[in-house]
């Protein structure tokens, strides 16, 4: 048996010969990076990868023919560049998610900025419309804005629903997705809404756990409901494929390790659906697709120019899956999301060990470019030549909290599965111990909002993570750095922007909100609009007063999600009546003003 040796000779020599021997830093560095949103790169017809780097607020252009970084454009700190598209003239358009504008660049070779046009509070999806040479911009606050690609003032501004994500031009129609609901809205060229569709539910095997199914029930199933639509892209034949999540509606168990795992082992799955926009009198349809991608956070996907491979980023598992596009025609009839047919894989998954991939795009000649922001690096995969890694300029980005937040746990989900972009999934979950609970948003001053959860039963983030992450999600025990890093990293995520349609109504609503007789501000007080107290507002016991920052973004409302709109919150059957502020005396017009104010927060 060999004993443990003392310090090795090599170590001693290293210490003696080197001028400075440094140890790793004892404490983790300051917060780094933004929540992964995904899909922040394009490859141009000139074979340049144009990368929006939201973690460093810059745009890079890499000539894939030579592997050289040809240009780097520094943006303003906090701009958070997102989607990038190329138009017919080779111009590039980049949405600045927090900058609130769209940058237009001359071309990939120069990245010369032609314009930086304000669009909306949080622009997300972009699409270039060849018929009108316009760029359509989809906004979190619900606007669909059209601007001339060549520059100039906006051509049109439509107000759709909140939480718009991607926009795709399909013939003479626009297909717009909504992020958390995964709803698709189809508009005609005039901007008239023609259809709204959501991916249908599918059935998954139920969790047998401690709760037996009803007698005589041969094989219990639960619905798997379409949710968070990370990415939509055209299939080239008028249809649109949407990479989204599904919520498997098992009861979540709170007391046992892995209690969030269900009959098939996970509460959230990755999925694809195909939207056919429909023309004339035909409304849009959407079809399910057999489980293809296994893993959490399908934040980006793209179809090869040959049309045979669908590549998808599974950010949670830090891998790229290469799937047979032909399998998109197979409907979803599986019991479990992991019951995928191995024949549907076009090639082995790519696990480059370069951190979390966020974006991918195919080159004109059929290679696949993948962006890894942490190193940072660009990987190019070829069917015949394997992979090559191009190291990009910039310091290594590291944040233990960010990595923890996106990493896939033992039950196959990440924190970001239910809190995409650090916010919420818009879903109501059924817990064995609490009943229905709407996911809470983490954005907007999380460290000043303790205690946590609707019941206020988690005194601090460490307590919450020990229970929810380590135990229920099987994420493993947090180390010291993860404990120290997660809170400050989350705390930087701002609440979604408010939305003002009628400033006068907002002003009237503010007066109602702050008036003593309504008592709204007695609990929803201060900068975050919360006293952080537990209050019984007539909805079934003491509930933590939620912050109202960004509340307009957070439908459905109340802790059970019983109010689908802010106005519905004032229905006593859901909102608690006169125990929840004093609003019975308000007229319908005053309620509308109050809602307008809440929407603006």
């Amino acid at each position, binding site marked *: 048996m060999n004993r443990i040796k003392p310090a090795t000779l090599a*170590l001693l020599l290293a210490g003696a010969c080197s001028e400075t021997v440094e140890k790793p830093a004892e404490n983790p560095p300051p917060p780094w990076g933004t929540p992964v949103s995904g899909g922040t790169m394009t490859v141009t017809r000139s074979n340049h990868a144009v990368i929006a780097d939201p973690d460093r607020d810059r745009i890079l252009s890499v000539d894939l023919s030579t592997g050289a970084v040809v240009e780097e454009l520094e943006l303003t700190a906090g701009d958070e560049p997102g989607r990038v598209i190329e138009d017919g003239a080779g111009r590039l358009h980049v949405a600045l998610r927090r900058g609130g504008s769209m940058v237009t660049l001359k071309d990939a070779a120069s990245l010369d900025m032609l314009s930086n046009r304000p669009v909306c509070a949080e622009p997300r999806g972009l699409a270039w419309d060849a018929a009108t040479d316009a760029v359509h911009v989809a906004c979190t606050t619900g606007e669909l804005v059209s601007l001339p690609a060549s520059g100039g003032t906006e051509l049109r501004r439509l107000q759709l629903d909140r939480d718009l994500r991607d926009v795709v031009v399909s013939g003479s129609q626009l297909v717009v997705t909504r992020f958390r609901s995964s709803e698709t809205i189809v508009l005609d060229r005039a901007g008239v809404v023609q259809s709204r569709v959501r991916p249908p539910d599918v059935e998954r095997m139920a969790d047998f756990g*401690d709760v037996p199914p009803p007698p005589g029930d041969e094989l219990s199933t639960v619905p798997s409901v379409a949710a968070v639509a990370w990415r939509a892209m055209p299939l080239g034949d008028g249809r649109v494929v949407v990479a989204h999540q599904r919520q498997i509606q098992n009861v979540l168990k709170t007391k046992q390790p892995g209690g969030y795992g269900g009959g098939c082992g996970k509460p959230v799955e990755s999925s694809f659906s195909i939207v056919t926009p429909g023309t004339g009198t035909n409304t849009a349809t959407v079809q399910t697709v057999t489980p293809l991608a296994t893993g959490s956070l399908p934040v980006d996907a793209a179809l090869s120019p040959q049309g045979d491979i669908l590549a998808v980023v599974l950010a949670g598992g830090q891998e790229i899956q290469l799937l047979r596009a032909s399998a998109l025609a197979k409907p979803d009839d599986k019991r479990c999301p992991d019951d995928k047919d191995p024949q549907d894989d076009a090639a082995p998954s790519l696990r480059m060990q370069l951190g979390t991939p966020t974006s991918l795009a195919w080159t004109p000649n059929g290679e696949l470019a993948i962006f890894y922001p942490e190193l940072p690096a660009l990987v190019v995969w070829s069917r015949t030549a394997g992979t090559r890694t191009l*190291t990009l300029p910039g310091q290594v980005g*590291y944040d233990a909290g960010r990595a923890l937040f996106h990493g896939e746990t033992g039950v196959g989900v990440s924190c970001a599965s239910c809190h995409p972009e650090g916010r919420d999934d818009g879903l109501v979950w059924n817990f064995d111990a609490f009943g229905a609970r709407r996911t809470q948003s983490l954005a907007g001053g999380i460290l000043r909002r303790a205690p946590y959860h609707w019941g206020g039963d988690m005194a601090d983030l460490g307590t919450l993570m020990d229970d929810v992450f380590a135990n229920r999600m099987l994420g*493993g025990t947090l*180390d010291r750095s993860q404990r120290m890093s997660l809170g400050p990293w989350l705390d930087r995520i701002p609440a979604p922007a408010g939305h003002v349609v009628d400033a006068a109504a907002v002003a009237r609503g503010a007066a109602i909100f702050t008036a003593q007789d309504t008592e709204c501000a007695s609990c929803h007080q201060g900068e975050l609009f919360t006293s952080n107290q537990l209050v019984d507002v007539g909805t079934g016991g003491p509930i933590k007063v939620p912050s109202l920052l960004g509340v307009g973004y957070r439908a459905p409302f109340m802790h059970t999600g019983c109010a689908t709109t802010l106005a519905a919150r004032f229905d006593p059957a859901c909102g608690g009546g006169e125990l929840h502020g004093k609003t019975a005396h308000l007229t319908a017009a005053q309620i509308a003003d109050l809602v307008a104010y809440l929407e603006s927060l």
Partner: protein
Amino acid sequence: MSRLTELRSILQHIVLASLPLAAGCTAIDDLVDDDPCSDTFNRTFELDSFQDDGPLRLRVESCRMDAAACQELCQFVMQRASISNYPEQCTVEFSGEASATVDVVYTVQTNANGCAVEGRRPAGLCSPVGGDARSAAGAWLAHAAWLEAASIYAFVHLAQELERFGAPTSLVRRSIASANDEIRHATTMIQLARRYGATPPPVTVDPVGERSLVELAVENMAEGCVRETWGAVLAMFQARTALDPVVRAAYAVIARDELRHAALAWDIDRWIAPQLSDEQRALVAATRERVARELLDSSDPSIAIAALGLPSSTDARALLAHTYDSLWTHSGGRS
């Protein structure tokens, strides 16, 4: 209290009662001093060309910024050196921007025999042939993956036989669900085995003809009530003690499922028992005693591999004895 809840309570009590002993065994010195089957190695890696090596540079620079990230660096350089063990000690020092020294301590088990993963094995299961492993942990995981894959056959066959004997649909359904669990387990274990550089052997099962109800009862007692219950205990233990967080997380899920499978076996036993004669019931009880004794008396019921959280021989005996007293003796039995 449901049967599952009751069984979970008993097994958790067994595992928790053994944990203080186990916790003492995970320290390096204890492993070196107490376990004659292990060799402990110290190895130093000089890193001086990581600037163009993306995966290595990412880990070196993360470690430079935060000591907590060094564990991943140590594991990474070990894996590249084809050392699949878990770094039990990890020390990193930097000399300027382009040079670092990584010093790791790890333990290798010298005795790979005595693999004691327990689970439901199908009738007609052939001995494993093939597979490949470069470490004791890898070998153990490969064997575990093989057993998990074999359990898929066992539960499918069990569901068919239960249906043939007119068992309640809930038992048939739970058997099918268990087969699905085992598919997931096998997938997980194969991935874990590969992580430790091992490839599991293929599963071969010879066809088995129709069996009588008493034959099913005997097999259910041996493979389910005893071996699967022991498998659940072991998995619960590993879920709490494995040094490798990935293994720990995997076994937390497996333990939950194996507990359900064990509860299923006891429920099947309870359904069959009234249909048997006194003589047949005595045969089933004798089977329980015999198989439990075989486990208890085996010379090396398990081997300690810290990364996987496997109990030492001493701990395994304590766990087995406790389980025997709680569930397998006539007085503590549940049938």
